[in-house]
């Protein structure tokens, strides 16, 4: 068998072992996650494996197959230059398919005044960019990919992995954040141009602190500024679609999600710029009970 290297990472409540046939993606991860704590005793929840697609692909046009404890058939391999993206996708896959200690919402989340703002929507809605931007403007970053909804307490737990910036968001954030917080720029990946950003330090040191959700937004970038009320049935259905493990959690997922829909006010938000979004959010936030 080919030799494997590995590192251990802890992000919010989850611990990972990332094993790789190549050092390069692990060195990049180790650098970007250098301020994160290590999982105790070497014990983790999930193993991610980055392996050559075919044995000869370790050295010749190396191509990375994403595997691990949980995996999908037909996952397309990535070139080694995108190994860091492969590792992040591998961790997301473990969470999406294997995590059961929270209801997982495909959503970003930020926190202010001890309460959480949750933003969910399709890819391209701008939820990830919004969370990154708000995190530089007085909000505490909690996560750009998954919001973890507590099954018993209804609180949101942070999952502050590296922020995955796409396309135009890369340039926008480069104007705001210091150079040493960025990973390598990866051009023309299956998800477009990608560059990872280390979350603000406080997001990492306080990643064990959960917060009560106070507002749920369905942002949509590029449409004329508008806030729209939504029916509970629409909210519920869209959240089941945004959850990777709603079905897998059975009754406890049903209870957590119905409580969330009951208690958390929600709006659809169309916006055309970050300033507009910030203004709309501040307006809603100031009127919360």
């Amino acid at each position, binding site marked *: 068998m080919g030799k494997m290297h590995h590192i251990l990472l802890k992000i919010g409540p989850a611990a990972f072992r990332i094993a790789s046939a190549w050092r390069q993606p692990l060195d990049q991860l180790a650098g970007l996650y250098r301020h994160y704590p290590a999982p105790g005793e070497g014990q983790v929840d999930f193993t991610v494996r980055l392996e050559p697609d075919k044995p000869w692909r370790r050295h010749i046009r190396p191509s990375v197959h994403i595997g691990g404890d949980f995996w999908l058939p037909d996952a397309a391999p990535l070139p080694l230059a995108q190994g860091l993206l492969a590792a992040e996708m591998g961790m997301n896959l473990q969470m999406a398919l294997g995590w059961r200690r929270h209801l997982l919402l495909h959503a970003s989340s930020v926190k202010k005044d001890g309460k959480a703002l949750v933003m969910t929507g399709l890819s391209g809605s701008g939820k990830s960019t919004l969370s990154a931007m708000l995190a530089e403007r007085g909000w505490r970053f909690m996560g750009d990919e998954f919001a973890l909804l507590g099954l018993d307490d209804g609180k949101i737990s942070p999952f502050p992995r590296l922020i995955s910036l796409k396309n135009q968001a890369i340039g926008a954030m480069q104007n705001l954040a210091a150079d040493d917080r960025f990973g390598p720029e990866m051009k023309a990946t299956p998800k477009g141009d990608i560059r990872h950003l280390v979350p603000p330090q406080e997001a990492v040191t306080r990643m064990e602190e959960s917060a009560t959700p106070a507002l749920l937004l369905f942002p949509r970038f590029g449409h004329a500024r508008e806030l729209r009320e939504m029916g*509970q*049935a629409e909210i519920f*259905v869209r959240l089941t679609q945004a959850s990777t493990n709603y079905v897998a959690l059975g009754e406890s997922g049903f*209870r957590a999600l*119905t409580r969330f829909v009951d208690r958390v006010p929600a709006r659809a938000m169309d916006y055309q710029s970050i300033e507009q979004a910030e203004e709309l959010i501040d307006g809603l936030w100031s009127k919360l009970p």
Partner: protein
Amino acid sequence: MTQKYRAAPAEDLIWHDLDSMKLLYHRPSGITHILADPAPAIFEVMEEAALAATEIIARLTALFDIESGGDAEEIILARLEELSLLGLVSRVPG
């Protein structure tokens, strides 16, 4: 012989209101259903008895402001068949 129907046992069902709709979590299957009128009302009047569609309509008209006659039986029968395909209502030999 008239086809009778019986609703799934109450302890298998968890109900939750969503505006005008009702959510129904069905424990044995782990499936969440979203039900619109008159399906939730049908469950309410069926309790755990085996009933024919006409008996269900009689109970519905007694409880709610629903017109009997017309196509009421057709509508209720269609809903009952849908619910029985989902395993939420079972067909009982009458």
